[in-house]
């Protein structure tokens, strides 16, 4: 690992310093550092590129870090990571990805993550995406996340893409059994000509299962964002999807919500708001002595916090 690597790691995965975590650091398509713990085993896949992460039944306060860094311009990385989390466990997973591209070829990372979460387990999944570099080569991140939530299992997923990613298509699919709970918080900010598309497909099969998806996004300059979601309620269940976007300059945002209830006791809600920063918010912060520019930054930073 060189200075650039640690700089990127710091941005995407700040908690890596924990001594008791299992981790795998992937750089330019190769695993460069790895450690398992008594309860959490990380193994290479034999049939394709990627890893299996096994979390033993009853693991309490398990930590997993699987950061990815890309520094070679023109490199196209694809990886399959599967999380097998046995029942009655509590696990925090950090999976950041940072691309540094200083040249003119496109660099891309395509991570396919699958989660099999056992009965009564709780998983917190944190994903931070980031790009940088002076080259005109694109920095592309196309993550696919598939989640299977067993009985009374919970997944809280926080994802953030704040800077430097030229193009992204995010696909998230989840299937929920009885009493399972899914909470997703997504934050996306785009600049220049960047594009971001995010697609959610949540299927609530179990009785008393619930899903809450909150997407907050800021589109600036000439960037474009698209939010697509499809929530299907096949049982007595509850879902709340909220897409909230701020647009600036010549940016554009499309929101395409779909909710399907196949059960009389399915309660599904979708809310979508798109608009510029509220004038009264700017005025209020200016009455506290902030310049218009600082007020705008404060509103956006809070919104994406």
């Amino acid at each position, binding site marked *: 690992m060189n200075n650039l690597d640690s700089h990127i790691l710091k941005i995407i995965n700040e908690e890596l310093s924990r001594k008791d975590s299992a981790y795998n650091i992937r750089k330019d398509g190769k695993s460069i550092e790895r450690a398992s713990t008594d309860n959490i085993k990380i193994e290479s896949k034999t049939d394709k590129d990627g890893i299996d992460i096994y979390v033993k039944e009853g693991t309490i306060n398990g930590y997993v870090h699987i950061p990815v860094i890309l520094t070679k311009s023109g490199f196209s990385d694809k990886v399959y990571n599967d999380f097998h989390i046995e029942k009655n466990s509590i696990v925090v997973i950090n999976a950041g990805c940072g691309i540094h591209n200083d040249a003119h070829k496109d660099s891309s990372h395509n991570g396919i993550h699958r989660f099999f979460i056992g009965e009564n387990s709780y998983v917190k999944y944190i994903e931070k995406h980031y790009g940088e570099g002076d080259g005109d080569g694109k920095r592309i991140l196309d993550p696919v996340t598939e989640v299977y939530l067993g009985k009374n299992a919970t997944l809280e997923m926080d994802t953030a893409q704040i800077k430097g990613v030229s193009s992204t298509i995010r696909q998230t699919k989840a299937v929920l059994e009885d009493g399972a709970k899914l909470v997703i918080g997504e934050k996306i900010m785009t600049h220049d000509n960047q594009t971001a598309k995010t697609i959610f497909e949540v299927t609530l099969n179990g009785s008393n299962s619930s899903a809450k998806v909150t997407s*907050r996004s800021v589109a600036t300059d000439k960037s474009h964002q698209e939010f697509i979601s499809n929530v299907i309620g096949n049982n007595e269940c509850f879902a709340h999807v909220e897409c*909230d976007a701020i647009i600036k300059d010549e940016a554009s945002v499309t929101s395409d919500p779909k909710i399907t209830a196949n059960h009389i006791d399915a309660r599904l809600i979708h809310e979508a708001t798109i608009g510029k920063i*509220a004038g*009264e*918010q700017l*005025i*209020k*912060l*200016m*009455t*506290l*002595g*902030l*310049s*218009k520019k600082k*007020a705008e930054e*404060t*509103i956006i*930073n*809070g*919104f*994406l*916090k």
Partner: protein
Amino acid sequence: MIELINLSYEIDNKKILDNINIKFDSNFTVITGPNGSGKSTLAKIIMGILKPTSGKILYNGEDITNLSIDKRANMGISFSFQQPVKFKGITVHDLINLSSGEEMNVHDACEVLSQVGLCAKEYINREVDSSLSGGELKRIEIASVSVRNSNVTIFDEPEAGIDLWSFNNLIKIFKNLREKNNGKTIIISHQERIINNSDKIVLLENGKVKEIKSTKELNNIVSVTNCCKVGGDINE
């Protein structure tokens, strides 16, 4: 000190404020008058949120008519909104920090909130959004503005929506502002107890100054305002 000279404000050919002349030289001035008489408009003009159609605003003798909101704020003018503004992702603690211009620790930020009778720990990390009630938002607004310790602080109907909270606390805040760096307070209010604590009363009607009186001659004015309304509504 704020002074308004021949100040008028028109919108769609309708005169909202008509040739206003007021010197806010007392420590504690109350502006009162019926709904729609132009009180909030006047406050917004002093803060720079609205620009007058004609006339001048002086602050300590300096013409500030064309200065921006933030310039005025940094010169020492503050404004507590009649209807507090909501934010997504900005917490009560953030707002207090932004308002005071420094990073306050949790203990100090809690002190600020307890001034307005809010049990601070429960509120400090809440977002300033619609999950808070109108009365809670209003108290947070008052507390966060008072922490600025400005030379001039304008409160627009501070009593509205806070019936559960005693007026003594509110009056204590105004007194504190006066004691610290001799701040002057301008309060838009219908509340008799606030009016009774003032040094000067300005009665607005139909965009005009109907009367300016010092407290000693106050009694008949109180009865005038009482007939109009006691206690505003947060949503008006």
